[in-house]
């Protein structure tokens, strides 16, 4: 039957005792009973080290996931404003890489050093979610944003531009003839609008 440790032994340091092994395997500071195995038989833990071995929150995995989310969410309101980071979203891809590296490091240490770090399950879930987010972004910029008709039917260079009379945002009628009379030329920007 496992004994419960309530206080540190008077003499710190030295080889792991059965009591310290119990503490080593405790989760979230709560002591558990059961058959135990020292995960690091090669090491002599001091009492302080054993206390330090309470399994830590795996901050790397969460930080990596946060970076991936920020990268995804920042594209439209920020990076898409600048042609340099919009046309080829290298800034977003770089952030994805940084987030992915953090997440990989977090998951790696959760599996390699489970006695010390939590997050085998949560890290794996965060990694899958991140992969979905990245895949959705890539799909968006390589597929969804290209779902427009080809420009084959558009008027070409050298053709006469059709005249128009349209309403401006103040409700005033604006004609192409009037605009052309007062200018050397016009730049017409057709845009999808915001409905």
């Amino acid at each position, binding site marked *: 039957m496992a004994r419960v440790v309530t206080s540190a032994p008077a003499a710190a340091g030295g080889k792991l005792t059965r009591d310290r092994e119990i503490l080593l395997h405790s989760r979230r500071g709560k002591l558990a009973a059961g058959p135990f195995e020292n995960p690091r038989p090669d090491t002599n833990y001091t009492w302080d080290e054993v206390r330090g071995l309470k399994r830590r929150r795996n901050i790397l995995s969460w930080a990596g996931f946060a970076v991936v989310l920020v990268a995804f969410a920042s594209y439209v309101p920020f990076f*898409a*404003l600048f*042609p340099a980071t*919009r*046309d080829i979203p290298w800034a977003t891809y770089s952030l994805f890489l940084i987030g992915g590296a953090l997440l990989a490091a977090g998951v790696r240490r959760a599996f390699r050093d489970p006695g010390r770090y939590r997050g085998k399950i949560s890290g794996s879930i965060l990694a899958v979610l991140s992969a979905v987010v990245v895949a959705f972004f890539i799909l968006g*910029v390589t597929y969804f*944003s*290209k779902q*427009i*008709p*080809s*420009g084959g*039917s*558009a*008027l*070409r*260079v*050298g*053709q*006469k*531009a*059709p*005249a*128009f009379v*349209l*309403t*401006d*945002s*103040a*409700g005033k009628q*604006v004609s*192409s003839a009037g*605009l*052309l009379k*007062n*200018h*050397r*030329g*016009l*730049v*017409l*920007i*057709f*845009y*999808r*609008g*915001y*409905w």
Partner: protein
Amino acid sequence: MRGFEQHLKEFHQRGFEVVAISVDSPAESQKLCHSRGYTFPLLSDPDTGTIRQYGVLHPKGAPSGNDIARPAEFLLDAGGTIRWVNLTDDIRVRARPESVLTAIDRL
């Protein structure tokens, strides 16, 4: 359009006006002018008459299923002839004002 607003002075210096056209209502355009600070005219073509004439209709392009304009830029000279066209294949990638200014300088 944000880039064109930033370079608007350079277009005006060359005697060119920038005009944007969409199916948005004048009220919607006004909101956009206020939120983004656009000072060039935003023209409303709700029945897509002009959009169709320029051949840049995107049938059922809006999530609501309405017809809208596909992104495109045309450069017209004083005689009303088209001198330069940009038809992107990606709604994210629009003409850069610098390249339109270059096209103007080459006229």
